[in-house]
């Protein structure tokens, strides 16, 4: 009895969240019909004429669509790999730190950029990598000609991914640190007594200890493959790097909001949602299988 009452309160607490979800996520989903219409804002989604799959046909004809899907996947893959590897290595290093008093301050400092919004962080980055910025000043000391970092299509995806990792690795480190604290110190002591050095213990105790966490994070990050980070790229890109930096979200924004191609951009957005749904389902299935992660 006591247990039941207890859970009922929890359900009550969920109400605001569900209302939010309903209002801002579920109801707007009906706007998807725009993808099948020649949408006219004056007539609304109830009055606009249906044109079947015309928008999708035109979409598939556009060269752009292929390149934005590729760019999105490429940039987000770079981000996923970076955001898994860098925090893990950093957490391991932090964990092995001899002088433990330093660990906390370092952790706090690298955590800080996470709290700065992209708008602010991006303008800092634009300056740092600017033509007259510090990076180019340092390069020029070594006799390298200044590089127009933000105008180089071949550099742009890496800059985006790199700066994203820079901003977020402190935050992601915490997850790994939490996993590391879950490892029984007794194992380390025992191994040390048996003569295992630091590196051996890392290889045979620490890594296996956090294996499940790593697998879980890898699998769960799959669903982000089509989210390459709108706000970041929107602020950092320019026409010069459209070829490698334009992602689905920025393209949909420009097409739908700047150029008033409502139906076409909804069609592209819908395609993205469908692919994302498949990816999320897959990642959930894999997470359940390999990491025993259960949502329901």
């Amino acid at each position, binding site marked *: 009895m006591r247990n039941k009452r207890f859970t009922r309160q929890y359900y009550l607490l969920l109400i605001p969240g569900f209302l939010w979800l309903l209002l*801002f*996520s579920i*109801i*707007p*989903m*009906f*706007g*998807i019909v*725009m993808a099948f219409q020649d*949408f*006219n*804002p*004056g*007539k*609304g*989604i109830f009055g606009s004429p249906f044109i079947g799959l015309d928008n999708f046909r*035109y979409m598939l004809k*556009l*060269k*752009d669509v292929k390149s934005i899907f590729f760019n999105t996947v490429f940039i987000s893959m770079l981000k996923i790999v970076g955001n898994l590897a860098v925090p893990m290595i950093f957490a391991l290093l932090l964990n092995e730190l001899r002088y433990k008093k330093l660990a906390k301050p370092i952790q706090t400092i690298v955590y800080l950029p996470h709290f700065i919004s992209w708008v602010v962080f991006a303008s800092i980055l*634009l300056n740092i990598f*600017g*033509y007259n910025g510090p990076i180019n000043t340092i390069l020029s000391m070594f006799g390298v000609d*200044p590089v*127009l970092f*933000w*105008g*180089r*299509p071949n550099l742009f995806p890496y800059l985006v991914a790199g700066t994203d990792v820079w901003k977020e690795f402190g935050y992601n480190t915490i997850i790994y640190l939490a996993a590391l604290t879950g490892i029984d110190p007794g194992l380390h002591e025992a191994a040390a007594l048996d003569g295992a050095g630091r590196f051996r213990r890392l290889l045979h105790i620490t890594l296996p200890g956090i294996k499940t966490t790593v697998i879980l994070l890898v699998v*769960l990050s799959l*669903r*982000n493959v*089509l*989210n390459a980070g*709108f706000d970041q790229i929107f602020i950092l890109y*320019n*026409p*010069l790097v*459209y*070829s490698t930096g334009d992602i*689905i*979200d920025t393209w*949909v*924004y420009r097409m*739908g*909001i*700047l*150029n*008033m*191609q*409502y139906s*076409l*951009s*909804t069609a592209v*957005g*819908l395609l993205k*949602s469908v692919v*994302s749904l498949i990816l*999320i389902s897959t990642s959930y299935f894999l997470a359940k299988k390999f990491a025993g992660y259960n*949502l329901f």
Partner: protein
Amino acid sequence: MKKKIIAIMLVLLLICLTACNTGSGNGVSSNASASDNNSGTDSQEEGGNATAEDNDPFGKYENPVVLKIGRSIDPLQVYPEGQSPESNQYTDYIKEQLNIEIEVIWSAAAGNDYKQKVNLAIASNDLPDAMVVENAQMRNAVKADQLEDLTKAFDDYVSPVVKSFFDATDNQAVSDVTFDGKMVAYPNTSVAASGIHNMWIRQDWLDELGLEAPKTMEELKEVAQAFLDNDMAGGGNTIPIAGPDTNGKLYANFLASGNNTYGFDPIFSAFQSYPGYWIHNENGEVVYGSITSETKDALAALADLYASGLIDKEIGIRERTEEIVKAGKTGMFFGPWHAVYSWLDVVQADPTVNWQSYLLPLDSDGEVNLHMNAVTFSYCVVRKGYEHPEAVIKMANLLVRDEQTFDVSVLPVADYPLRVNNAVRDECEFTVSALRDVLNGDKTLDDFTDLEKQVYKLLVSDINAVKGVKTEPYDDMNIANWNFDGDNSTAWGRTYALLVGCGPIVDTEYNEVYSLLYAQTPLMESRWVNLKKLEDETFLKIIMGIEPVDSFDAFVDEWLDIGGADVTAEVADTVS
């Protein structure tokens, strides 16, 4: 868990982005109809006593009329104490003269931000009572049947002077905004000079180096090189030629045909290239100017200048070109006569900064070619169902009548609510000639007819101010011969812009090139975005050396292939 929720939010963000428009559209339309009802009852109360005199172009409403507007804001504009975008000397004046209360319900930074805000208003079917839009936006709003018919308001209330501006366009201005016999917007009537791009150059730098203003492309390169070699700005900061920033364009185009400050229009024209314009080729066929071989030559020249470090390295990426130009880092830029209009702070900070302008460089035949702007390109539209559509006409009348009484040094006239600039096409040229006559002593204010004083709306104030601002010798335009202290500071900007910026237009013989078309055709609505993106990206890359000049040929093929050929055929159809 947190990550999961964030992920779900991100996935749904896109759906929201596109779908919220419709969702909120429905919500808002019911709001809008509710407020319609409200304003309906309001006007019933006002009903009989709304205007004392019927059809008076300057009639003051007896009861305050509320006009809710969306407006753009210049992010660099500093408002004087007690004034703001919402409430300033112009809104006060409108309230006092017409009893119209301006309420700013939203605002956005001029440029892309404002464009986006307007598009969202149209997409969500939630228009303010009035706002200023571009041609394509007007067409979209017409398609969505969102705009009030202004035909009657315009016919009944337009003042005779403003009417004369419209008549002077051979009815072009009215027909630009007439759809199915209805006038859906109040357009600007452009000044020809605002579509002409001069070469502005630091005369003090030229003098220091003992150089002349460059007449040809070769000389232009030599002069720019000299600016760079001698580091005229100091500290290694010299940028010989400024270029467009992230909000800017390489060249004006048929949809935005004027006021392209910091573009490269004159350089293209020097190669008889008119990118962005629909023109006839030598065989009389309709062709898009961006795909001609002349344009390729111009791009090659620009790429050469860029590679030599003579053009701003950060074109297209820089946030605001105006900042480096005003900071004195650049030696040359291209822009219309009014580019220096509000640069009082620049010359006050350093009175030796001597910007002069020329209609140069010349083409290979030694001639000056200019591509000309459209008659109308910005439009004041009124929400369908707004009770007092004539209010915007009255405000426009008032601006034309009283613009010369405003103190623009306190706040530029661009802050006048819903301003679309109405003027006679030759306003600048006429005024420059008039000012020169007055300076020479050939004429005085009394020699101008009343009609001229009304039609050239700032003529009286210009003539009154000119002798205070310009010092002798009157034919020497160098900055040393100008007075911009104290009382004269107000008039300096306009007078300097006119005599220095517009003077060359009066003095120079030039070939006018008009676009065959200044609006979108139906097919362009779906295709143009992608064609334009390809063009912008390719040209910028060619200039900046990321792609070789010869990639231009592949660009032409692709452009024609992805819809350019169809669009060209449609334009040819429309034109004939």
